[in-house]
Structures are given as C-alpha cells and as structure tokens.
C-alpha cells in the first residue's frame, strides 16, 4: 500500500506590517488553529497600537501619551507564539524564492500577508523644519501634542478628517487655528461637495479659520516654522503646522517583487495579491469589493481589522478561502460632534432624511441609480448602522427613504451645543 498523498497547508506565515491589520492577521491565524511558525515584521519600534486615538484622545490636555496597545509582548510572543521583528522594516520581496528581505537578511514564508499600511504625504521642502509634522505614527502624535501643550499657533494643511481632528484639538485649548484647503470645497472626494461644505461649517462655528482654494506657497522659518504663506500672499503666523493631505500606500519595498501595484497592492475579492501564497490587508490593499462590484482601497479601522483576519485565514487555509466584502465605515470626532460615514458617496446625489446640514445633526443618504450606496451622519449615532445594514442588503434608495420615514427622526433632548 502506498502512502496516501497528504496535502498539507502552509507551514509558515509571515505578516509584514505590525499595526491593526497585521495584528488581527496573526490572531486570526492562531484562532483557526494554524500551528506553524508565525513571524510579524514591523518598522516601528512599538508593539501594535491603535491609531484612531492619535488624533483624538492623545491630543487632549493632560491625557496620557502612552499608546493604546492591543496585546502585550508576552501575549504575542508566549501565548500566540509569534516571532516579533519590530523596528525592522521589510526591504524587499521575492515571490519566486518566497522570501521577505529585511536588509541583508531573509525570512522565508509559505504564506504571506502584506499589511504595510500607508505613509502620510508631507509638504515638500519642509523636511528638517521643526514644528512641521504629519500625523500618522505615535511619534508624530507625541510631537503634535507637545506643540499643542506649548500653546502653538496652529495651521493645518488639508481639511480632511485627521487634519480636522487636529484643528478641533487645538481649538479646544483656545489656540489660534487655521485650516488651509487646496480645493474650493473640503472633503469632496469622501462625502461630495455639498455635505463637505456642511461639515466644514463645524470649523467656522468653532472658531477655526478655514481658507479653501488656497495652497501653501511657502513655509517660513529657518530652523523652526514661523509662518505659512498662502498662494494669495496671506501670511499666517504659526508655531505648529500639521500636514494632513492624505497618505500613500506603502508599496515601495515591493518595487522589484513583480506584484501588481496600482495605488495599493492589487488583490482579488479573496485578498489574494497575484502571486502564490500572498495576500494583502489594510490601508495597503486595493481589493475587489463584490458588494459594490468595484476595486477599492480604504484607510479605515474596521476594514483593516477585518481584512487582516480574513487575509490570514485565507492564507493559512487557502482551500477554504472566503471573499471579503464590506460596507466601508469610518468615524471622526470634531469639536465634540461625531461624524460617521458608511458605504460610498454615490454619484447620483444625496438626500437629507433627518436634521439640517447647517445645524448640529443630520442624516444624509447617497444613491447610485436606484440603489442606496452610502450614509453620512452628524451626531446621528442611532442611525448609521441601521442604514449600513440596508446598504449591505443592497437596498433600493426608495426603500431607505421609506425606512427613514418610519424611524422617527427624533432629536436628542440631551444634545448640547
């Protein structure tokens, strides 16, 4: 009797990127019973930590500046049996030899999850100028916090979500704060021009100056930033400049790998990245979201967590692989108000179904054709997940409108201004 061929799965998993997606990847692999070697490679010196607080709680006066970590080193190393390679940027990938390069060293893998995230765009020419920061990492956040503690006159470049949270933190301390936005209306790409304008009103209502349609002509100062000159010639005095003009997926280390890269690692619906055993997750992954039948790359907490887990499950059990589909969801806190968005801002208009965009509460629904594709709420915590569920069920727009009529749009008596 000849020995039966036993088809074995991968015996080693390497995860590159030690933030939320990478962490959830190693957790999920163990949870489904993967017993092989797991290596988690990260470029930052810190254990995996949570990023949303960096632009929120961590900037508040007196708040601790320790990172919110999910698991201790002991839990990762001893309980989960993960080999941790922190402060160790991956420098290359050879998909044929199935090795990840770390400088001169190689780490072999059978299964690989790429979760290297994204890197914040900076302002060219400001390198080495003290007081100019992006906000992506714990170290960035601590620098911004120090400046706010010192009472910095603050200029935020870019009226996106993270920059707006920084402006909000600066105003909470009563600091002079200006947001400079290159486009005529903020947040157009995320929520459309009308509601972008509505959200931007939060800035002006809370004493932040908003300068739209302006770019930075020069950041002034020799060693330290002293001011920002705009294209119209205005000079704004500044001790702190926070640049929030988006992030670029971190794929530079994959340049020679032959992996398909197009604003992110290009994946199919199963998060497979185009070479045997390789998957991608989190901010770096551009995958086919079957729920909207389109290629997407999202920089959201919940997608990073879910993709990390799904990519790892698929990587260690490829025969049982499942596709990953989601209604993208993010939240942002400005001036004590909560903004939540789920889905995609459809191209065919939106309708306010509760509240008023000029006020401190509204719920807006987006459509594409006759389908409900998105929901944006300002202080509408009660509503957002209900519409998100409708979007996941591929509800028609008129069904959502009917639902809005029945779900009594009550205003909270406890809302404070």
């Amino acid at each position, binding site marked *: 009797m000849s020995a039966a061929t036993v088809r074995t799965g991968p015996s080693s998993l390497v995860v590159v990127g030690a933030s939320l997606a990478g962490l959830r990847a190693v957790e999920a692999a163990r949870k489904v019973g993967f017993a092989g070697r797991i290596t988690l490679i990260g470029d930052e010196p810190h254990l995996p930590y*949570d990023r*949303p607080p960096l632009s929120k709680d961590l900037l508040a006066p007196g708040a601790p500046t320790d990172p919110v970590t*999910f698991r201790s080193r002991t839990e990762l190393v001893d309980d989960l049996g993960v080999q941790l390679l922190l402060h160790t940027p991956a420098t290359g990938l050879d998909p044929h030899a199935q090795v990840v390069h770390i400088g001169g060293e190689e780490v072999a893998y059978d299964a690989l999850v790429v979760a290297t995230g994204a890197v914040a765009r900076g302002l060219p020419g400001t390198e080495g100028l003290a007081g100019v920061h992006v906000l992506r990492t714990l170290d960035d956040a601590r620098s911004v916090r120090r400046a706010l503690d010192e009472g910095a006159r603050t200029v935020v470049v870019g009226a996106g979500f993270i920059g707006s949270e920084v402006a909000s933190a600066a105003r909470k301390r009563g600091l002079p704060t200006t947001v400079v936005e290159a486009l005529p209306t903020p947040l157009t790409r995320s929520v459309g021009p009308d509601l972008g304008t509505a959200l931007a009103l939060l800035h002006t209502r809370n004493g932040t100056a908003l300068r739209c349609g302006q770019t930075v002509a020069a950041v002034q100062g020799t060693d330290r930033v002293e001011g920002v000159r705009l294209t119209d010639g205005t000079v704004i005095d500044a001790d702190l400049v926070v640049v929030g003009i988006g992030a670029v997926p971190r794929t530079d280390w994959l340049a020679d790998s032959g992996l398909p890269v197009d604003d992110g690692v290009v994946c199919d619906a199963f998060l497979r990245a185009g070479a045997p055993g390789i998957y991608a997750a989190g901010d770096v992954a551009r995958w086919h979201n079957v729920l909207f039948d389109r290629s997407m790359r999202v920089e959201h*907490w*919940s997608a990073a*967590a*879910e993709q990390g887990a799904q990519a790892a499950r698929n990587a260690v059990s490829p025969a049982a692989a499942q596709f990953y589909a989601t209604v993208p*969801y993010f*939240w942002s806190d400005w001036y004590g108000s*909560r903004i*939540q968005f789920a889905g995609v801002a459809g191209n065919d208009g939106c309708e306010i179904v509760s509240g008023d965009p000029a006020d401190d509460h509204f719920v807006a629904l987006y459509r594409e054709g006759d389908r409900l594709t998105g929901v944006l709420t300002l*202080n509408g*915590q*009660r509503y*957002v*997940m*209900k519409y*998100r*569920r409708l979007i996941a069920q591929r509800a028609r727009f008129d069904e959502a409108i009917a639902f809005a009529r029945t779900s009594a749009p*009550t*205003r*909270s008596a*406890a*809302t404070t201004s």
Partner: protein
Amino acid sequence: MKIVMDRAKCTGIGICEALAPTIFEVDDNGELVVLSAEVPEDAQNEVTEAVEGCPTMALRLQS
C-alpha cells in the same frame, strides 16, 4: 454568558451594532444600549465577534 460593558471606554462607534444588531444599539445620545445582557444561544457567534471587534475594548463576556 453575560455581556459586560465598560461605559467609560465605550464611545458609541457602533461596530457591535453592525455585527449583532439584535443585542446592541447606539441611542440618540451616542450611548450604547445592551438590549440583552444575557447572550441568547443563537447569537453567541455574533456577540463574540462584536466583543472582539470593539475598537475601544469596551466589551467583555462573563460566564
């Protein structure tokens, strides 16, 4: 199994409501309401996912 919520940690992000809508609901004030502290037999999986998926680690299960 019982759901224990740490109200000091919860900020009403709503991931739990997305995963287990019959058990969790965020109210008008952005506060989480646990609709059923005792986890029903048929909702154990989704509640476990919700507890593990909480971005602020505000939920835990107590047997």
